[in-house]
């Protein structure tokens, strides 16, 4: 059983690669290998709409399309999560924050200068 998060990703992939808007039925048929019920597709689409990633038109049947292209989404993600606008608190634990070229070089030298403490028993 696929998690909702995984289904959301699969549906988004479909929407991103589709030409223009897509109906829920078409999405279900496109994801036929997953054997999804139409209600499940609707649930996933509703969640994606609530999160602001998908918009629908008023045609009958309703047709859905992504609010931003895949590239725009990736750019937004890098900007918000890792970029200057990123809230440092939210991503608590970025392994290493941004570093300028000088500091990167100094770190490299520090590593090169040390013989390695594990080489000799402490």
């Amino acid at each position: 059983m696929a998690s909702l998060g995984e289904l959301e990703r699969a549906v988004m992939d479909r929407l991103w690669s589709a030409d223009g808007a897509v109906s829920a039925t078409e999405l279900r048929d496109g994801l036929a290998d997953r054997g999804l019920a139409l209600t499940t597709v609707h649930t996933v689409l509703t969640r994606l709409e609530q999160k602001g990633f998908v918009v629908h038109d008023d045609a009958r049947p309703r047709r859905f399309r992504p609010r931003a292209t895949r590239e725009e989404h990736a750019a937004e993600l890098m900007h918000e999560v890792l970029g200057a606008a990123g809230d440092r608190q939210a991503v608590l634990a970025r392994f290493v924050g941004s570093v300028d070229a000088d500091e990167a070089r100094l770190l490299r030298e520090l590593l090169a200068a040390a013989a390695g403490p594990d080489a000799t028993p402490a």
Partner: protein
Amino acid sequence: MLPATAAALAVLAALLAWPVPAWLSRARWPRRDPLVALVCWQAIGLAGGLSIIGALLVHGLAPWGHSLPEAWWHWVTRHPAEAPVRGDHWVTQTLAAVLAAELLGVLVLSWVRTARTRRRHRDLLELVVEPAAVPDARLLDHPAPVAFCIPGAKPLLVLSSGMVAELDEEQLAAVVAHERAHLREHHHLLLLPFVAWEAALPVLPAAGRAHAAVRALVEMRADDVALGSLTGAAPRRTLAQAIVVAAGGSGGAGVPDGALAVTGSALGERVARLLEPPSPLPGWVRTAALLSAVALLLVPTALLLLPAAL
């Protein structure tokens, strides 16, 4: 008499607002035992807030009784004051209320805002990350070497494809162990009060200093925990290499230009500490530091609750 208590609390508050954080952020021992230092910082933060609000409250309520609980009860039950009430009593009462509301309010606000940002980040990420080869980790298709985790009920540990490409298996395991340590020990909760109080008290240089020190200590602590779970031949060097690669230093050997002090930066400090581990704190120093942290919390609490003996 209450005025003596108020004065004692005010002195404690002044010490905790400037000299104590300044001393601890300059001290060299915290890098030898980040965990004990983190406990001390939490105690300083809590005791500082408690003593400044307590000092104002005790002075403001002095006319109503001989101990804070008694005076508070008389004040709440509209009991007439035992001594003349002057303007400064009303002023300090108001200040205590405003300060308490601000500190707690900012803490709650900061919690809510961070939780919302995290949810947004998680939503953005979930659409594009794929399961990674490492258990529990997600892979983000991006050339820059980045790794991070988003704490919460459903924590998310993300590695970029650039990170996976540039690190060998052992280094990658070190990065993941470091991030898992943050999540397991809930380091975001240790940081929260310092973030909030830096926002609440921008005029207090110690607030910014404390935040920076706690942030650096949390990273060192995660390094220490990660080392405990690594199995390679030289885990310290492996983790240091991973840090240097992630900092964009994977290129060829640079020309030495040793004038700049790399140990001035938090990252340099982290790498230096991994490569040349400082000796651990002696047991008695550890105990003394932990006892001081406990005492730091007990002193203002006792001053607030016990009837003044003088």
